[in-house]
């Protein structure tokens, strides 16, 4: 068989296939499996955001669990207030707090909660991003700082039990906008909303990546100093894309908490945060589809393995990190693309940004590596 397709056509075809699959899934899957898939799709939204900053811009954030968690907590605070029917949430009275804290008040309105669930992660990301990128703090240093952000946020959330629910987190919700959350029809609706958000995010991210902005992001990844010399300010672009991806993580948090019905500090810890990076790595860096695939496949594998062999899961997860980095640096989608290219199934623009960069990096490293220029 000899196929010959352009890149754009393939992308459109894949988007349509993905959309059709997600719409058809409720017909094939049991209620339990469907709720799992709904959560995985929420994760896919985070993965797309991470792909934009890591795959395209080359910033490795180990702190996306925090942004996801903040979004989820904002939504959960609203749900908790609804479930308390105007009284003080139960965990607050256990901790001896008598009046609703002021920062809980805006969350009485669902619209404000949704808005804040996206804006709060963006604000935190802006602070961390601006203050580090501005000083040209290097890639790995930033990763460490973002990981420290995870640690302190988790300790803060666990420690301030009266305000955040402590280790148990927030749970026991009953309804959202008057819809009972335990009804199958509501759950199905949340699933469809998630599916639509995934498609919308996919289109938005594809558009961003192929726009002029996306090209500058790739340029920042491959040669930040040269971008600066040409006259762009990389800080603006990095901060923008970092906030954008934090906002996506917050959005994913909203959708996650609506379907899962619980949020706790364990979901935003160090391990979940770094697992998010693995989704992108497995699916394929700098391919938006790869992020979705990676998130769904990795989590499906995690669910089935940890059901069957819980004690072996960490070893398998660890091995996946090593294998992907050593043998599959382009991930599933990147590797498939490469195979397809070799067989000549593509025409027109065929090289993925990552491939172009891995060749460019050989020469670039020499003039940006401090060990050489010192």
């Amino acid at each position, binding site marked *: 068989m000899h196929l010959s397709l352009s890149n754009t056509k393939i992308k459109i075809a894949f988007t349509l296939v993905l959309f059709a699959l997600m719409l058809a899934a409720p017909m094939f899957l049991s209620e339990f499996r469907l709720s799992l898939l709904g959560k995985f799709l929420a994760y896919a939204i985070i993965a797309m955001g991470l792909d934009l900053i*890591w795959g395209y811009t*080359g910033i*490795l954030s180990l702190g996306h669990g925090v942004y996801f968690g903040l979004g989820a907590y904002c939504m959960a605070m609203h749900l908790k207030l609804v479930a308390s029917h105007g009284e003080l949430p139960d965990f607050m009275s256990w901790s001896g707090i008598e009046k609703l804290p002021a920062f809980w008040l805006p969350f009485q309105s669902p619209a404000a909660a949704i808005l804040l669930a996206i804006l709060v992660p963006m604000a935190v990301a802006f602070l*961390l991003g601006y*203050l*580090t990128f*501005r*000083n*040209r*703090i*290097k*890639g*790995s*240093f930033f*990763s*460490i*700082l973002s*990981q*420290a*952000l995870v*640690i*302190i946020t988790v*300790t*803060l959330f*666990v*420690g*301030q039990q009266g305000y955040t629910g402590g280790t148990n987190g927030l749970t026991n919700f009953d309804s959202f906008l008057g819809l009972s959350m335990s009804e199958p029809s509501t759950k199905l609706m949340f699933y469809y909303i998630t599916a639509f958000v995934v498609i919308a995010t996919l289109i938005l991210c594809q558009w961003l990546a192929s726009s002029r902005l996306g090209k500058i992001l790739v340029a920042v990844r491959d040669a*930040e*100093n040269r971008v600066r010399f040409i006259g762009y300010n990389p800080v603006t672009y990095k901060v923008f894309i970092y906030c954008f991806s934090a906002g996506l993580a917050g959005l994913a948090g909203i959708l996650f908490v609506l379907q899962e019905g619980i949020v706790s500090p364990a979901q935003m810890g*160090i391990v979940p945060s*770094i697992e998010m*990076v*693995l989704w992108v*790595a497995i699916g394929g860096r700098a391919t938006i589809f790869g992020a979705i695939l990676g998130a769904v496949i990795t989590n499906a594998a995690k669910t089935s393995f940890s059901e069957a062999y819980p*004690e*072996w899961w*960490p*070893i398998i*997860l*660890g*091995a*996946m*990190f*090593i294998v*992907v*980095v*050593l043998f599959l*640096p382009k991930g599933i989608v990147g590797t498939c693309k490469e195979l397809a290219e070799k067989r000549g199934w593509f025409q027109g623009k065929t090289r993925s940004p990552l491939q172009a960069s891995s060749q460019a*990096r050989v020469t670039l*490293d020499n003039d*940006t*590596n*401090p*060990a*050489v*220029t*010192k």
Partner: protein
Amino acid sequence: MGLLLLQLFNGISLSSILLLIALGLAITFGLMNVINMAHGEFIMIGAYMAYTIQQLFQKFVPASAFGWYFILSIGVAFAVAFAIGWLLEVTLIRFLYGRPLDSLLATWGVSLVLQQLARQIFGAPNVAVKAPEWLEGGLVLSEDLTLPYKRLFIIGLVVVCIVIIYLYQYHSRGGRNMQAVMQNRGMASCLGISTRRVDAQAFAFGSGMAGIAGCALTLVGPIGPSIGTYYIVDAFMVVVLGGIGKIIGTVAGALGIGVLNTAFEYTTSATLGKVIVFTLIIAFLQWKPSGLVTTRSRALD
């Protein structure tokens, strides 16, 4: 007054542990630009070595000699962590030079595997290591100020380690080779230094230091498979704060974080203290983005 001094002492004691951990990190990061997330697991290996040797002593050695097990376990912990570090460098790390973020992910995978292996070998619950008798008790300075011998021993151990590292780095052939590679890899290689071997040695050496740190940690409290994760992020912060390339920077970074952490945790609360220290570090980096002490360079990045 006594209370204040005690807090300061606790701060220095925490600093000394962080320093032991961070020294290895600073070397591998400065030399190879590799972020070793599995460093915490070398702490864990060292701690379990101390535990194993204690068990062996209790079984096979007369009770009178029990006190000596700790000295032996420091050596064994270093040797085992050194060997595993060498193995890791040869089998994995050397394929990842020039890809710092990838090395971070791969070593994270290694750390997950090592933690789970420890869980399967030694069991998930924490185990306690009994300190030798000569470390029980403390130095009584005044009524309200007693310095535990254990903590004093750790501080002494760190001082000894730093002196050894200093002598090695600046006054031995191997250490000077390491400095040369750190400063200019290409030129060092041209002058006949085997950079491959220097890398492997440095990585193994850093891992060995983490093993000693793990051994010291058994004096502080019970140990478990995930003991490394408690300290590793703080240790990385020490490296970020202290800067790369000179021992003195790491020492200053460790002292800063250790003392500030203890001070703020004492005056506010354990959770708020961490938040304040992190904010201070970010604020400090606004002023000195590459840390307290750095080697001077005209490079852009």
